């Protein structure tokens, strides 16, 4: 089935790429979305089953695929709006769409990959496609960011590959299923702990570029800055989920061994440094998208802390990722609208957004509330659970430090949000020829509403997915 999906994606992407026609783009995108959703339904209803020997529809992958599908819908819609607002050549547009389709397909592949080498291949593929998308606007900054992202990610992914190789050391692993996750988990106890440590360390470092945590978080931030907003939304959400997945898969291998405590310590260090980096860098930034990027760094740091805490922290970390995806995506979609008014992402060029476009202002406020984990945001609940887990694990100093840093981030975020919404109107803002589609804002409300709803009363289906995703760790 998954092969069919890939073939469809590939054919559609190629058609888009070669036709260079807007109508074709739209039709193919629509078809792709259909197949995406269809495949997603299929995969969800077949959780626990293998699809070819390399893929398995597991709960976590399923969860992320749902998030991915929802965000794909939104991203295609916002991409459509993005192309309405900006002038691009047909070639660029079709390149954009085909890369987007391939990106989504490769993320799906990463979500369901059962073989960690294949997981690695998928992640490397996402890097390639996403760097093309980052480069989409063809500016110098875009070129720089795309280069940095591509290069550092590639180096990182290469390092991660080295880590993956170490797993193949496990005794009794042979034949085609060499790097099958299931196999590795079963044999994990027999692997030399030192191997496990090195492997985990290398994979963590390598995939940190994808997940956007310390130490290779820097390029992800740059990528956010220049990518078109719908793509930034993707980089910050689904792609980070994929990076997380990469680390999480390795983590599941370790979870059953005596190395677990060590790995959690490393994650703790990574998490707290990520939050620190985010808190100090966000103070300096003058660019909305960079601010959001640092906020993503912070949230990924929190997720790492969640993994490090263990127990309820696992659950909370995944919950956090899902919520973060929706909120951050709507923030980026929203900033796209803001850009259409002010033609700039810099703080200094903005102000009085609430007056100009109240509905957008409300959406932005709600985004702000949600992303900073203030109730009614679901992120509040997940963060609460993570801190609870940290306290239970006696990681009190780290927890308190993180709380302090989060407060700083909240301050900066709040200051700049209020600046955008209420600061004095900047000069040379022309509002007459700005038309904003109300449905655009509505789509953000839908995403945010989803976060609030899932936070307050998560459906059983949803909690079951998360629970079965982390059941492997217990």
């Amino acid at each position, binding site marked *: 089935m998954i092969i069919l999906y890939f073939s469809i994606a590939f054919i559609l992407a190629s058609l888009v790429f070669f036709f260079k026609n807007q109508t074709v783009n739209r039709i193919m995108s629509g078809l792709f979305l259909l197949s995406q959703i269809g495949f997603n339904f299929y995969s969800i209803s077949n959780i626990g089953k293998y699809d070819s020997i390399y893929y398995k529809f597991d709960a976590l992958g399923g969860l992320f695929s749902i998030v991915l599908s929802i965000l794909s819908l939104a991203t295609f819609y916002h991409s459509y709006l993005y192309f309405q607002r900006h002038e691009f050549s047909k070639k660029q547009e079709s390149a954009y769409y085909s890369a987007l389709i391939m990106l989504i397909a490769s993320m799906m592949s990463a979500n369901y990959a059962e073989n960690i080498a294949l997981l690695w291949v998928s992640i490397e593929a996402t890097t390639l496609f996403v760097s093309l998308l980052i480069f989409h606007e063809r500016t110098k900054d875009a070129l720089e960011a795309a280069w940095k992202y591509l*290069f550092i990610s590639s180096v990182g992914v290469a390092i991660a590959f080295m880590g993956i190789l170490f797993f193949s050391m496990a005794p009794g692993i042979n034949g085609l299923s060499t790097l099958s996750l299931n196999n590795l988990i079963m044999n994990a106890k027999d692997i030399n702990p030192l191997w496990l440590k090195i492997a985990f360390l290398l994979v963590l470092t390598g995939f940190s570029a994808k997940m956007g945590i310390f*130490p290779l978080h820097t*390029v992800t931030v740059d990528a956010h800055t220049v990518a078109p907003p719908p793509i930034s939304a993707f980089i910050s959400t689904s792609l980070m989920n994929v990076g997380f997945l990469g680390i999480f898969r390795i983590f599941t291998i370790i979870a059953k061994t005596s190395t677990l405590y060590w790995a959690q310590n490393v994650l703790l260090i990574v998490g707290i440094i990520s939050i620190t980096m985010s808190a100090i*860098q966000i103070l300096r930034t003058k660019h909305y998208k960079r601010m959001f990027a640092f906020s993503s760094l912070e949230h990924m740091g929190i997720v790492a802390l969640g993994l490090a805490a263990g127990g309820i922290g696992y659950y909370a970390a995944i919950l956090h990722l899902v919520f973060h995806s929706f909120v951050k995506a709507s923030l980026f979609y929203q900033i796209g609208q803001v850009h259409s008014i002010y033609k700039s992402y810099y703080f200094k060029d903005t102000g009085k957004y609430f007056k100009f476009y109240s509905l957008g202002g409300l959406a932005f406020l709600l985004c702000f509330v949600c992303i900073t984990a203030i*109730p009614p945001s679901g992120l509040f609940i997940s963060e609460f659970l993570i801190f609870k887990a940290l306290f239970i694990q006696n990681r009190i100093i780290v927890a*308190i430090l993180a709380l302090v840093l989060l407060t*700083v981030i909240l301050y900066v975020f709040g*200051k700049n949000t209020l600046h955008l919404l209420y600061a004095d109107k900047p000069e040379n803002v022309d509002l007459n020829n700005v038309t904003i589609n109300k449905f655009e804002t509505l789509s953000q409300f839908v995403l945010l509403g989803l976060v609030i709803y899932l936070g307050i009363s998560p459906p059983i289906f949803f909690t079951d997915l998360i629970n079965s995703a982390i059941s492997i760790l217990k």
Partner: protein
Amino acid sequence: MEVTIFNIFILLAFVIFIVPKKSQYYFSAFIHLGLIGISGFWAINCFYNYSEVSSLPFITFFSNPLNLTIDVLSAFFILVINCTVLTGFIYAKGYLKSYSTNKSKTEFAFHHFNFIWLHISMLLVVMIRDGLAFLFVWELMSLSSFFLVIFENEKQEVIKIGLKYLMQMHIGLVFIIVAFICVYIQTNGDIGFDGLSLYFATNKPFLVFILFFIGFGIKAGFIPLHTWLPHAHPAAPSHVSGVMSGVMIKIGLYGILRVLTYIHQDLFSIGMFILVISLISGILGVTFAIVQHDVKKLLAYHSIENIGIIGIGIGLGVIGIAANIPVLAVLGFAGGILHILNHSLFKSLLFYTSGSIYLQLHTRNIEQMGGMIKKMPKTAIFFLIGSLAICGLPLFNGFISEFLIYSGIFKSLLPGNLFIDITLLFSLSGLAIIGGLAIFCFTKVFSIIFLGTPRSDSATKSTEVKGSMLISFFMIGIIIIFIGILPAFIIYPLSSVVGIFTKDSSILYQSAYNLNNISLVSGIFIGLICTLGLLRNRQQKGKIIKQGPIWGCGYTGINPAKSQYTATSYADNFLLLVDRLVNVKKRFIVFKSEEIFPRKRTFHTDSSDIFEDYLVSLPSKKILYWMEKAAVFQTGQIQHYLLYALVFLIVIFFLSILNWI
């Protein structure tokens, strides 16, 4: 059934965004009334069959059923909330009219929405016992009030203040979270208030209590946790500041009271802690208030003072329980809890009336006012009622609660415990000083705003408010005087609230006799005033009654508007006593010896809050400064980025080799 209707009203709040601008107010009033009706019904129900805790299934929250639990304490707070919100939104009708031109439909809708949500969240806070849900609605309360504070968002100052407010509320929340988690770790039960009893039964409560106290105390505004309060209240529109000061900060006290209900040991140190903080809050609050020129800021500092008085009552009550002095426990708690109600009444009245003045003058600086009593006599009378009540003077409700606390102190002076006697002595003197300073302050405010001659043009042109605003004044005024003159009626419901903390609440009934005497004396007092007035009328009949200028010591060229006493000069002699504390700065140019024809000069005084300066502003500024200095990692150099990874790998590797992690 009621819960369903309650939920429907909550959901209706979202409809406000699509209601046309004209009917927004009525729609929100409808929701408020619905909420008040249902929750009031619950509360009164609870009072009628008290000692019974009713639990209603509310919603499913995070896969767990969530109940609304209403005991007498919750019921009391529900009534206080409803009362203030009711007057608040009645007042808002007139107050918001002045904004209708420069605010859009969405902004109004957002404002009403937040006002409704402030109401809902306050109600929920006092009804929810589950920890996570409690934190949730607690922060919702802060959030909605934050949006209400920044209503006048075209002013950059307001935005800054709002942000500060949000930050401090968030820090408070963090403390509460940490406290709950600490409890959870020890007991491994539920996170929530119900888990506390388990914890406090086996562990020393002091440290966890401190955490709770800081968390709730930031909301309540105890010094030194108060620094948001004097800024946020003035920045908010008056109906909001009325509600915020009237009830929202009391919700902080609710938290403290709720936690106290679970603590049964180590109470003495906790009581002392509350008492000391409250005494400091009371005395310093009113001290800071005296030097303010911004009427709403002044009132905000008075809120701190009154929180201090409430805290003194509660602290004495706790000490009473700990030292086994039932009378102190009962009267302390009774006084403190009654003062919660009283303060919510007179403080909202004061904020509403000062809001009316603000609408007329567009300034909150009392130095620009004067003579308003002739332009706005009704507002003046209600402000006077509020002032007398806040000073704790007889005939008004403030006296009753202070009376209860005082009499608790005096009655418990009897047993021979040196430490407690000295404690009582200090609380007594503290209360006396607070009362005296409050009188000092409110004679100043009332005189400068309403009496004398107008000090600015706009003050001469102002007119009396009408309609809904007056209705709310009357409502509050009547309750204030009712409680002040017939306090015995309040004793019975009060005793059931006090009964939560101490079993001997029947002691309170004995005070009913004293309170009846107060009613009697009040009656005589009023009668005497009236008689004297009639006497004077008779005496003056046929005599020459003249109008003339004031006595200027023989100097007739006096300009009354310029030469009258100002707020600064009124406060000056007090200022000399406390100048270190309030950081008064006088800015002026000294005359030089060669300056034969002096230039035109100006004179400025301003004061700041030393707690704010040294506890909040300075450290946060330093932290942000150093953090920004440290932000050097996003260099733009690709090699550096790779270097981080290399360093990280090496460091972790060596740490592992050395077995440090």
